[in-house]
């Protein structure tokens, strides 16, 4: 790497002792590039076996990569930690200004350990790291705490404010960290880890220039990548409608999970589609730093106050496909305003929308089937489409007034262990299901992906593009494995997955050389495998096994676009995946 590249600086912060120090770790970045690669190496260094995810030894690791600040759409931050939700690998990615701010503050990675005795927030500007008393802002919702810190601190426009809502403070195991109001480290409970450390927020930023190996080649390569991004048709669609453009096509294919996947087609899909939301609610588009696409879509929701005529509040609420699925179709909510209200609640208490929606969907079905009653729900009667009851339940998931809500605060699988209904608890590796009932590929990704996220290997996409004769357990497992390996490189460079078609292996190798890293295409392929194995080693070490993975019965019952799915196919494919992880 280039000698004076600040990427090699790793900032260590000990919240217990209120100390911080910087180590130069070119070794890490030269070997693993950044992002997922560096973070997983640091996780092995910093997280002892059997660590309590909510204890002081669990590290919060953030890592960015060499292309951040140099090339467009390399703007993601990878967070790693031991997940309080699954008990193994915690990995979550967020955009916004987080990655650029970490890089501009002069760091490639940050490791936070320990636990503060009082609520605090951190400010990090270049070499100045400060611990601030956050007692007065403890108990605040995510948007309010963002406003307070925004107004109190410097660096407007060149900073990132990562914070938790009340759910993180109360250690809801799927609490998220919100950054720039509308982006999230959503999955696997980073918010609860923040809360356990009494860390309410981090503000980070700075300004610097970044060196390249060849100025002329840099500008030429930039122009080429930039042009290709603008010419990619799928990216144009993400600008127009955002990810919510997927609602209608998936519904048409009968792959949109509806009412806890009792169905895969929603009769009100049109009302919560990207098209409908854009026509009736779209108020603003936003972009992550250094991204020309601007896929972030905000609905402007005007709500009348009931106690006074002609008095309204207007709220801007970000919506995406996954949220529409989890808090719309999955809960039978076809009223777009009601869905947006629910999205807003999820946003300000600060929980992962997918886990929250799927947990509420399980709750509704368990209530319908009599596994739980109003005794458990404390008088609430969850029913499909009733968003107000879901809002009230979410508030109780934060306050946890009884054992039932304490269980819901740990997700659908945990609750189903206690109250029954595991066959319809839609969790994979304990993580709640993303919105794709597309066939074997989609569910295999949820099962085998190291994060149990649809983005790990995008099986939903293979379900839609593979020919029927290609859909064998062996072939599918191999394709998903290759995809997950490739995505380790993309998430080590911290490039947004939306730009993956532009950033192919040859392009990556060329851009890395401009940033001072020498990797051949072959090196990158090997490294992808190595990083995936490194992540899996952590999972195995913490007790995860591919052998006893639970496959929720519901996915075998509800017909997919590929017909009825068979458990046998899944088991075979999982076994192939497992062998690919160990073979050379």
């Amino acid at each position: 790497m280039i000698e004076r590249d600040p990427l090699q600086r790793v900032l260590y912060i000990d919240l217990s002792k209120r100390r911080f120090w910087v180590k130069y770790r070119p070794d890490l970045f030269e070997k693993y590039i950044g992002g997922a690669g560096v973070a997983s190496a640091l996780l092995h260094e910093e997280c002892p076996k059997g660590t309590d995810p909510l204890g002081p030894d669990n590290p919060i690791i953030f890592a960015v990569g060499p292309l951040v600040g140099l090339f467009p759409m390399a703007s993601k931050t990878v967070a790693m930690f031991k997940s309080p939700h699954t008990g193994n690998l915690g990995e979550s990615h967020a955009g916004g200004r987080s990655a650029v701010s970490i890089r501009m503050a002069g760091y490639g990675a940050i490791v936070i350990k320990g636990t503060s005795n009082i609520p605090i927030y951190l400010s990090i500007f270049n070499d100045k790291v400060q611990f601030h008393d956050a007692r007065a802002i403890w108990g605040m919702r995510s948007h309010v705490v963002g406003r307070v810190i925004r107004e109190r601190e410097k660096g407007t426009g060149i900073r990132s404010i990562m914070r938790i809502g009340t759910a993180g403070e109360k250690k809801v195991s799927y609490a998220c960290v919100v950054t720039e109001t509308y982006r999230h480290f959503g999955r696997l409970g980073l918010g609860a880890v923040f809360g356990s450390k009494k860390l309410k927020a981090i503000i980070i930023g700075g300004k610097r220039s970044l060196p390249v190996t060849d100025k002329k080649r840099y500008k030429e390569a930039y122009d080429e990548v930039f042009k290709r991004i603008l010419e990619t048709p799928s990216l144009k669609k993400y600008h127009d409608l955002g990810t919510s453009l997927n609602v209608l096509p998936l519904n048409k294919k009968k792959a949109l999970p509806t009412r806890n996947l009792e169905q895969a087609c929603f009769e009100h899909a049109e009302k919560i589609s990207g098209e409908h939301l854009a026509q009736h609610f779209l108020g603003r588009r936003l972009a992550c730093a250094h991204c020309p696409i601007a896929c972030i879509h905000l609905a402007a929701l005007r709500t009348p106050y009931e106690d006074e005529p002609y008095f309204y509040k207007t709220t801007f609420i970000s919506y995406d496909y996954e949220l529409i699925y989890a808090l719309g179709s999955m809960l039978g909510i076809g009223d777009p305003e009601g869905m947006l209200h629910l999205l807003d609640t999820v946003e300000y208490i600060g929980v992962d929308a997918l886990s929250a929606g799927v947990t509420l969907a399980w709750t509704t079905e368990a209530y319908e089937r009599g596994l739980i009653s109003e005794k458990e729900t404390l008088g609430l009667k969850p029913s499909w489409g009733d968003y107000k009851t879901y809002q009230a339940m979410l508030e109780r998931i934060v306050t946890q007034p009884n054992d039932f809500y304490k269980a819901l605060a740990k997700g659908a699988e945990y609750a189903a262990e206690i109250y029954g209904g595991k066959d319809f608890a839609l969790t994979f590796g304990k993580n709640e299901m993303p919105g794709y009932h597309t066939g074997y590929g989609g569910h295999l990704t949820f099962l085998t992906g190291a994060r149990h996220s649809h983005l790990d290997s995008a099986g939903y996409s293979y379900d839609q593009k593979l020919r029927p004769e290609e859909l064998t357990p062996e072939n599918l497992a191999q394709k998903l494995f290759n995809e997950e390996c490739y995505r380790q490189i993309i998430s080590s460079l911290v490039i947004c997955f939306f730009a993956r078609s532009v950033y192919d292996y040859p392009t990556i190798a060329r851009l890395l050389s401009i940033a001072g890293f020498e990797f051949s295409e072959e090196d990158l392929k090997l490294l992808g495998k190595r990083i995936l194995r490194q992540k899996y080693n952590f999972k195995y070490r913490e007790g995860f096994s591919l052998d006893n993975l639970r496959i929720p019965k519901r996915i075998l019952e509800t017909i997919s676009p590929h017909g009825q799915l068979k458990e046998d196919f899944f088991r075979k494919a999982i076994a192939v995946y497992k062998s690919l992880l160990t073979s050379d």
Partner: protein
Amino acid sequence: MARLKVIDAERCVGCQLCMFACQRRMGAGGFAESAIAIRSRGGLSRGLTVIVCRACKEPPCAAVCPVDALKVRKGGGVILLPQRCIGCGHCQEACPIGAVFWNEDTNKPVICMHCGYCAQYCPHHVIALVKEENEDD
């Protein structure tokens, strides 16, 4: 003379491609020496502000410079003569829209020179290099 003009800040999505472009013009990444800034109007839900020199015909920054380091540019705005600049920062205070930025390394101001490089990278038609004759906005 052409000058960089904010055409419609309401179309800004906050991508900051202009800030990166301004720095890249010099062949580097990041934005330490960018002469344009994008920030929210108090949270991203409220929209964005584009801060850049608007090429004043009688620039207050030049008026307060004690060493004549800011030469008034033909067509408005200023050109920095770095060898004269003593880094006092009066120019930065004098600009009411905050368009005089600061390079901490050189301890000298950074002010847009209206080359229009950034506008080539604005995909959302927020800024443009426009030819102005007798217009004085």
